[in-house]
């Protein structure tokens, strides 16, 4: 007859406290092992490297190393006109390029002082872009999160819907990924005929997909076991480490820049801000699911309200004049030439604009000494800041929990490393 023994195994918080206490006393409960995870690891979603110090299977210290995707975007920005930098913003959070495009031009428009003069149609179009980007980013984030914790199906399932967003992006901007859709003072082109109906169709279909995804995950015992009570971030820590986006709201702080600092036409749209109650990996998943439903709600309202009119500010000192007028009139030709070669003439000054991106607060700080190029452009990327909590969060967890925590953070290294 086999003998049954009870083993005591503390919860994560107690292990974390023990790990911290052991650190202070310099005690080793056994040999510690250093495990290198990444920079090329499926769960690190790009090129994040984690150096984990392990006591058995429990993490006692975690040191993230970032910078493998550093391309010097801020340095590059100092050497080109404001418009020339737009394609570089596609490559920050490359899962939501439309949202980056909008965030960047809104910052430049704030510097120019024209952010209140944008045509209504342009503003509604930009809101639709942002929300499509949010759905696209969350769909991928959720799919890969589920795959990390062992549910392969969800990824294929969400990617099918994401494919439709790429098609919408393509017919809107001409590119599936690197959209570069916005321009200073407007957008590069109006939507093509029939696009609104395609968008409505997508909204109807994607909601069904959310329901199906939820039936796969939300009450899935394995998924819940792997995510509930794991990676709990307290309210205080979330604020202290400057988290933003769904990671902040998962910890119960109802802060959304679309509500708190309304830009575009968000103050005229109805939507709710979901928040978590525990702050664990599961809450962050729930927040993202609900955010996507709210995004669909916003898109539907925008499509209903979509006004007519121009999509660019009709001020040719800022936006490009229509091509046929450039080719036939002197004045427009001059504006076109100056805009393209020298860039928009920005006043000296400095602004910060924070945008509620799918991953969190994407901020642009522009310091201008006048002229067509920024003197300094700082990108405050949400993924960079969100990852900085890992050395605090991971100790006390098991090695297997790392993938759940990383998946729930939904970060992108292109944006983190800039």
């Amino acid at each position, binding site marked *: 007859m086999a003998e049954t023994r009870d083993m005591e195994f503390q919860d994560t918080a107690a292990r974390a406290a023990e790990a911290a206490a052991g650190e202070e006393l310099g005690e080793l409960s056994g040999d510690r092992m250093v495990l290198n995870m990444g920079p090329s690891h499926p769960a690190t979603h790009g090129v994040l490297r984690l150096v984990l110090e392990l006591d058995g299977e429990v993490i006692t210290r975690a040191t993230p190393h970032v910078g493998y995707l550093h391309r010097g975007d801020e340095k590059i920005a100092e050497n080109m006109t404001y418009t020339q930098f737009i394609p570089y913003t596609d490559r920050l959070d490359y899962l939501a390029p439309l949202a980056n495009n909008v965030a960047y031009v809104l910052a430049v428009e704030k510097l120019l002082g024209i952010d209140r003069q944008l045509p209504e149609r342009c503003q509604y179009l930009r809101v639709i872009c942002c929300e499509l980007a949010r759905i696209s980013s969350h769909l991928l984030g959720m799919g890969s999160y589920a795959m990390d914790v062992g549910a392969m199906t969800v990824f294929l399932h969400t990617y099918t819907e994401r494919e439709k967003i790429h098609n919408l992006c393509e017919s809107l901007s001409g590119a599936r990924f690197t959209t570069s859709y916005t321009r200073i003072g407007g957008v590069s082109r109006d939507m093509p005929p029939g696009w609104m109906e395609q968008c409505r169709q997508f909204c109807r279909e994607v909601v069904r997909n959310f329901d199906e995804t939820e039936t796969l995950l939300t009450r899935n015992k394995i998924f819940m076991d792997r995510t509930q009570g794991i990676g709990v971030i307290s309210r205080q820590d979330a604020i202290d480490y400057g988290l933003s986006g769904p990671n902040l709201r998962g910890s119960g702080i109802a802060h959304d820049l679309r509500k708190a600092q309304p830009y575009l036409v968000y103050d005229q749209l109805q939507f709710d801000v979901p*928040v978590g109650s525990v702050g664990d990996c599961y809450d962050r998943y729930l927040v993202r699911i609900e955010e996507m439903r709210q995004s669909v709600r916003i898109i539907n309202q925008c499509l209903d309200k979509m006004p007519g009119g121009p999509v660019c500010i009709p001020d040719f000192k800022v936006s490009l004049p229509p091509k046929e007028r450039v080719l036939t009139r002197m004045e427009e030709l001059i504006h076109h030439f100056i805009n393209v070669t020298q860039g928009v003439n920005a006043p000296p000054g400095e602004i910060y604009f924070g945008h509620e991106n799918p991953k969190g607060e994407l901020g642009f700080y522009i310091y201008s000494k006048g*002229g067509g190029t920024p003197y300094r452009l700082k990108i405050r990327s949400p993924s960079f800041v969100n990852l900085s909590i890992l050395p605090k969060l991971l100790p006390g967890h098991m090695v297997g929990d790392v993938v759940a925590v990383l998946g729930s953070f939904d970060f992108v290294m292109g944006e983190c490393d800039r």
Partner: protein
Amino acid sequence: MSTVQVTTHQTKPAAAELAQRLQARFPEWLSGPEEFRGELTLRLKDAERIAEVCAVARRELGFDYLVDITSIDHYGEDPRFMLVYHLYGYDHLRYLRLKLEVSEEKAEVPTVTAIWRTADWHEREIYDMMGIRFRGHPDLRRILMWDGYPYHPLRKDFPLGGKPTHVPDVAFTEAAPLEGGPFVTVPGGKDSVAREPRVRVPEPDETNPSAGQS
């Protein structure tokens, strides 16, 4: 999980009021507020006081969220560097910007990591990119560039095309071939050559005698 109605900033103290209250606490160190596009900036005369001012801003004025820290290189001016702190409060939903100047010789300011933990990586990034040290920082290492990298790439005297380094055992020590690019733009040039100087192949110097030779 629940959905809640988020408060907007109609009934909260104005940003100007908060800035004035902070300025009144440190009248001899803080000047301003200056306003541009609805944003308020306070200038701190003595860089050594940043931690004290930030502590008051967080504990007494509710600026509990440090959005960002940025550095600017005013190359050729004295003091050379400028640090920019963006503060935000979740209760009053107001932004405030603090600016201070740091000379090139000193290039050191006190850390604010004790006030906001998020300052940790922001300060490491500034140390890495601009070469300003933060006194009291718990772990001041490079963050985007690799350990042992000798330059600070966001300084204005660092060329856009990069500089080769000769650190042993580190990959990518030569500057990447540029093929005449990247394409850069400088406003106000007399002709298109002055306005759009390509990043040229670097001139040979003592650190890199082989540069420019194909």
